[in-house]
């Protein structure tokens, strides 16, 4: 039967996961390493989704939960109904970004991801020094890890120059066709 | 699927055994699962009862497809009827090929009394397949082979 609930319908069509299957046993939350840090834990998030109300959906997209999720997949590994919560989290993060509802505490996390992807966009590979610099610039956490960097350098863990790949065009077009593509934004 | 086929409503006859598939189809009903109206069930005591010449007769009379379905191996209510049926089906298939009849118009499956959903699935996939294949037009050919067969008592 077709799903009358718009939100869970969308989630199903994008992730193939049916939120109605969750019977709220809480096993995911019980095993979640960051549940205590989250605005609300995974099982509660599933329940909010099941209600299908816009208010609750908004609460989810504005929560830190979706950004704290590490995708460690313990929840999926143990879920008696084999519900792919990590996949839902990925989808919700995308929605939260597109709808500009990212939780304030999650900004550093998003900034890090953005800096990370930028680094790849321009060099094809991760340029850690550049990443950290960009991240600091984004978050103004200028002093973070100052103690770490020199030792990393001394231990030869830092390349001061980025490794470039040849086919930068190829990488560029991957980005322009996906994350930088305005069309995919409001999906 | 091309358009003229999408309008075409295939005639499909299902030869099923009384104990497994007929009961399974009953379960499909009690579970209110929906399937295409094209298939009509003929009830046999056992797939072992099914004389495959009757399938030919069906084609000769303009059936577009046929389903034969009974108990799973080892689950036959009569111990071994479905094995006989399977053996006969294998030899019969050879005969059909030889006669130039499209074997893919015959769906042979096992549906137990507990598999209501499976029955709905078998029906729907068969109907879809036969739609793809289009109407069965060569049946006069089959009719030819069957002139001598006596049935009508």
């Amino acid at each position: 039967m077709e799903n009358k609930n718009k939100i869970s319908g969308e989630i199903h069509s994008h992730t193939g996961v049916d939120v109605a299957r969750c019977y709220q046993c809480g096993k995911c939350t019980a095993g979640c390493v960051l549940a205590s840090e989250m605005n609300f834990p995974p099982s509660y998030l599933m329940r909010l989704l099941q209600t299908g109300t816009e208010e609750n959906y908004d609460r989810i997209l504005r929560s830190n939960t979706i950004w704290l999720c590490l995708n460690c997949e313990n929840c999926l590994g143990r879920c008696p109904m084999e519900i792919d919560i990590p996949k839902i989290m990925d989808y919700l993060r995308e929605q939260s970004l597109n709808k500009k509802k990212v939780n304030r505490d999650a900004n550093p996390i998003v900034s890090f991801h953005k800096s990370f992807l930028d680094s790849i966009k321009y060099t094809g590979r991760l340029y850690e020094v550049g990443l950290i610099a960009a991240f600091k610039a984004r978050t103004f956490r200028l002093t973070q890890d100052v103690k770490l960097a020199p030792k990393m350098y001394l231990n030869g863990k830092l390349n001061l120059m980025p490794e470039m790949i040849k086919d930068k065009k190829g990488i560029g077009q991957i980005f322009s066709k996906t994350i930088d593509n305005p069309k995919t934004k409001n999906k | 699927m091309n358009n003229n086929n999408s309008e075409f409503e295939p005639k499909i006859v299902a030869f099923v055994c009384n104990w497994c598939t007929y009961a399974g189809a009953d379960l499909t009903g009690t579970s209110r699962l929906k399937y295409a109206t094209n298939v009509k069930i003929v009830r046999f005591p056992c797939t072992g009862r099914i004389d495959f010449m009757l399938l030919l007769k069906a084609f000769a009379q303009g059936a577009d497809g046929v389903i034969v379905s009974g108990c799973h191996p080892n689950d036959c209510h009569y111990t071994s009827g479905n094995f006989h049926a399977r053996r006969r089906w294998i030899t019969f298939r050879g005969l059909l090929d030889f006669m130039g009849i499209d074997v893919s118009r015959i769906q042979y499956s096992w549906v137990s009394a507990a598999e209501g959903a499976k029955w709905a699935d078998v029906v729907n996939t068969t109907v879809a397949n036969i739609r793809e294949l289009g109407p069965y037009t060569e049946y006069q050919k089959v009719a030819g082979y069957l002139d001598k067969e006596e049935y009508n008592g």
Partner: protein
Amino acid sequence: MKIGFYPGCSLKGSSREYNESVVAIAKALDIELVEIKDWNCCGATAAHSMNEELSLSLPARILALAEAQGLKEVVVPCAACYNRLVVTQHELKDTNKRERVTDIIKMSYSGDLKIINVLQMLETYAVDKIKEKVTKPFAHKVACYYGCLLIRPHKILQFDRVEDPQSMDAMVKLIGGTPIDWAFKTECCGAGLSVSRTDLVAKLSGNILKDATERDAQAIIVACPMCQSNLDMRRGAINETLSKPSDIPVFFITQAIGLALGLSPKELGLERHFVNVKL
């Protein structure tokens, strides 16, 4: 014997000792590693947190390159990359996704490349060699730490058992070590939040170190650069969360094996560690 090789970014940067030790023991075990030409980053957590198509396209390009290079099997030491590549290959079994992605990367992709992690490589190709070549048994009590990405999603990776995995323990036994039975084998270390939420990483990694030390392990063995850098480089931050600071060293499995095979600490990049590796 020849096998394809995808190092990934960490192994070229902050975790180069992992790369060094992989290459070193491969050599010692007569395994020739053929690096994928002009490989790119797999996108890691960042990509699939931000955009699904991107998170599939980046790994897809890597796989396509490997296929174009005629490789049949590729070893991926970084657990994160390994996870992304296998998951992508699985996701792309879906024809629609495959069409979308191949259109994005503009490369042909068949999806029949065999992707394995370091443990699988050693299990399949090196067990006997290691047995015969062990000169300095790694006779220590160690906690094998698998983390998340090597094991989960189990249905897709199909590697080892989902709780309390055993393959690394077996490897350790093989080189004369004693793996302990402990509780945090597959609990997450904080992985991608290393920089953005160091506080949480310190807490999670702290729990891991705590359990290992309390069960008197002398070292932690890992097969993931993120786990290693969190447990090693972040030790300062971690120790601030612990009542009793921990000085337990964190080895890559390849380093442990290398030592057992008699390779020098330098070849294995051991001097790059933050926490003293004297045992």
